């Protein structure tokens, strides 16, 4: 992917854009303009346009009528049309308000919102029904699934107005979502997963039990991964308000080891449940997340 287009996926750049729709378009257009050739078109019955034939293209898509008229081999392209329903579960608990020094001004919830906006834009453009669920200790906001182009505006507005509050109760929310969704679809969970690992696994297993496809975007700040602090620090938990005084430098290695064990445990647990897992560092661009989604989406086709 070219460097210039990758800049459009930089979370710091996106955070400076006031309009969430603009964020979504920037992310998606920037993302796709770097891909060649585009593998994500052609799964539709609605005509889109023609393009020149390249060796390797399937012959069945050659428009012979055009060839008869113009003596040029062209491929006929279609808009993708599916009936997949995508549920975007966005964590807006207080812990998602954390922003580290590596990405000043970009909170985890911002990063998650950018990702949700980009995915919504992409999904709706592909004709998928898209729903948005914002939650903390319980569901705080919900936009029911729809596939209309105008539905994007409602989702993006909700994302832009999202406010972090409350403690994380991911397991309960997952159970609620599992019980309330009537239609089988793709569950996209965007969260920092700061809850009990077992409860999370059980909640996700509940969704899998209902035949949902699940992809988990685990959003963590760089500081949360590295504990890159110096000096005497009094850490205050953003949700429980607990305090802890320490020399970070003296416990850094131990902390990194524990975080690594936690992530390994989550990865293994979700892998056993056939749940896709993608760890996202808020200091990195969004492309990894988008690729992970598209890979998952293609498998569903």
């Amino acid at each position, binding site marked *: 992917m070219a460097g210039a287009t990758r800049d459009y996926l930089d979370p710091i750049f996106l955070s400076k854009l006031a309009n969430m729709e603009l964020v979504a378009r920037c992310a998606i257009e920037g993302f796709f303009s770097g891909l060649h050739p585009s593998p994500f078109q052609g799964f539709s019955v609605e005509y889109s346009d023609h393009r020149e034939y390249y060796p390797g293209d399937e012959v069945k898509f050659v428009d012979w009528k055009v060839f008869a008229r113009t003596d040029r081999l062209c491929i006929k392209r279609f808009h993708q049309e599916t009936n997949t329903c995508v549920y975007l579960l966005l964590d807006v608990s207080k812990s998602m308000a954390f922003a580290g020094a590596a990405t000043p001004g970009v909170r985890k919830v911002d990063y998650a919102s950018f990702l949700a906006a980009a995915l919504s834009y992409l999904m709706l453009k592909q004709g998928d029904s898209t729903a948005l669920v914002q939650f903390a200790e319980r569901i705080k906001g919900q936009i029911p699934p729809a596939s209309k182009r105008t539905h994007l505006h409602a989702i993006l507005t909700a994302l832009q107005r999202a406010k972090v509050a409350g403690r994380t109760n991911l397991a309960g929310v997952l159970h609620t979502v599992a019980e309330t969704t009537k239609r089988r679809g793709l569950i996209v969970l965007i969260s920092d997963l700061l809850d009990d690992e077992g409860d999370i696994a059980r909640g996700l297993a509940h969704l899998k039990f209902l035949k949902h496809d699940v992809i988990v975007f685990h959003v963590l700040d760089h500081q949360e991964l590295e504990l890159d602090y110096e000096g005497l620090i009094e850490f205050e938990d953003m949700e429980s308000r607990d305090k802890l005084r320490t020399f970070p*430098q003296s416990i850094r290695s131990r902390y990194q080891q524990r975080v690594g064990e936690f992530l390994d445990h989550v990865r293994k647990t979700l892998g056993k449940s056939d749940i896709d897992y993608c760890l996202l560092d808020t200091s990195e661009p969004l492309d990894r997340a988008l690729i992970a989604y598209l890979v998952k989406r293609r498998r569903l086709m």
Partner: protein
Amino acid sequence: MSFLQWTFLFGALAVVGPLMAHLLSKPRFRRVPFTMLRFLRSGQRESQSRRKLRDLLVLLLRCAIITLIALLFAQPLLHVHSKPQEQRTVVHLALDDSMSMAYRDGGKSLLARMIEAADKRIGRAPQQARFSIHTLASRRHIDGLDKRQARAEIKRLTVAPRSAQLADFLSALRQGSRQKPPGTRVRVCVMSDFAPNTLRQFEQVLRPAGVHEWTYESLRPEGKVSNAAITGARVVDASGGTLDIDVTVADWGDTAQERKLTATVPDLEPAGVDVHLAPGQQRVFRIQVELQHTMTGSHRPVLPVELDLSPADNLVEDDTYRLAVSAPAATSTRVLLVHRADEAFLFETALDALARKSSAWTPEVRMATEDHVTRGDLNWADTVVFSALPADLRYRTEDLEKVTAGGGRVIFFATDVGNSKIAERLWREGLLPALPQRWAQETVYLEAQPCTRLCPGFDGRTARSLSNYRPDRIAARGCWLCRVAPQTQCIWRFKNGQGFLWHTSVGRGSAVLVNTSIDDSLGLLAKSGAWVAFCGYLLGEDHEAKQFCFSTAEQPVLSVSDSGRTRQRLAVVPVENCDGSKTRARIEGDRLFMPAPAGLGWMRTLGATSLYAGINLPAGETDMGSVTTEQVADALTRAFVTETPDGAQPAGARQAAQRKPVWPSLAWAIIFLVLLESTVTSRLKR
């Protein structure tokens, strides 16, 4: 442990600072919102306990550093008490190698017996003992010898032609005792013949040296002592055709002496007298040496006279005595007294007194008034005395210069300025040493004696004898303030700093200005008892025989002017020492300073006419007078103490209780703790 500056110990109270800081201080924590506290907590418990431990360690280190710094400033001294079995032994051997130890008794000298005794004593000493060897006469001090080295060292001992000196040994003993390590046991053994000369020094010790143990070995002749010695000689007269010398001969032994005393002078017939002495007797014998005709008159050679006793006894070194004699010249000095009126009467009287005093020096006096002086008078005179500065010159100044060119002297008394133009002319031509310009009316006194040490032609001995008349009590009514030529030398001053006697060299002779009147119109000098001596000094009277004999302990100083015709002009002259080695001597004024003698014998200058100096034993060095054991023990008790009263603590005992400074260890400990503290602190921050 004790402290030199114990008040600095209060500085240790400064540990309160870090203690309070540790107890009261709160670390400044930066508050940071975070999410994953559960992962922090697991490492936190371990970190917290480790940090507390480090905090405590840093606190202890800082307190220790402050305490050690306070201790360092207090200058602690550690009291070192060494155990008796760890004591080392230092044996100080004081060996008498003076000339009396050359006495031979039964074919073996006392020195050889002393070496054998010392060897045995070294053999009996503890194996680990160290030896210090001190030679009393040659004054060598060798420390830190083991047995083998000490034995080799004493085998090299020879007799030194000097007297034993105890002071150097005691000084070296005290210094060595101070520098010995703690726990050292100091033993002293003195080996000597304890001749009266040596024993007297032990008896006169004022501050005894503290030692753990002292002993002595008296090396006396076993039989009767047979030893006669020439202890001195004095030239009585040399003005005639003979050289009369009084020789003092002493019988230092226990047997009567029948000897022959012989005086030997190169190129002359030896003269001798028989010597009969009872045991312990000391007599003076006069010996007459016939001088050749050429050695009298105006020629004054320095004669090396060697006096010898024969036949030889058991100590031959003191049977010979050497003295160099400077025989006086039998001269007649022609003095022209130029006066205006009869003011030269007192001077003429003084000349008459001087002529009667000495048979060798006969002044011929011619008097002439200033108006009647002729060239013939000037040509006749050796010395011209002007009772006042000339008011008129009826002769040419060249005639005066002829007087000085022949080695004569022109003397001016400054009664008044006379004719200032003539005075200035004489001054410009160098015949007048200083030009009187202004009369200072004040009572002035002379210095006690002239400073003639640096002025040839003025005898130092005469100046010293002149000082016996106390000229510093003679007052003058004033003095002339003079203008002085650069080459002029002031050889006598008033106490107010003005010159009294000015001198300048003219040709082979000299010119002198006396800043007073010849008839005492300006002061009382001419009427005082010093007047005759002063006139003799002024005319350069020097008519006594002089002798040059020195002991080995002296530095020979000869008189260059006494050599008369040698007229040494060099500041340094080559000389031959007693052992035949060539060296140099320096001349300051009329004195010739010879180097230190290298034994007994002759020292002489190398040149056409030699000056001699006879080098003999110190007086009484070979006195072998009997000394009892009690006398020796009593004398040594005065020199050494073994008790430990104040001020006379034994050297070893003092060292056993020595206080050892511990500040170097403290300084290193502080440096180490500072480094450790910084390391721990930096790790604490991590």
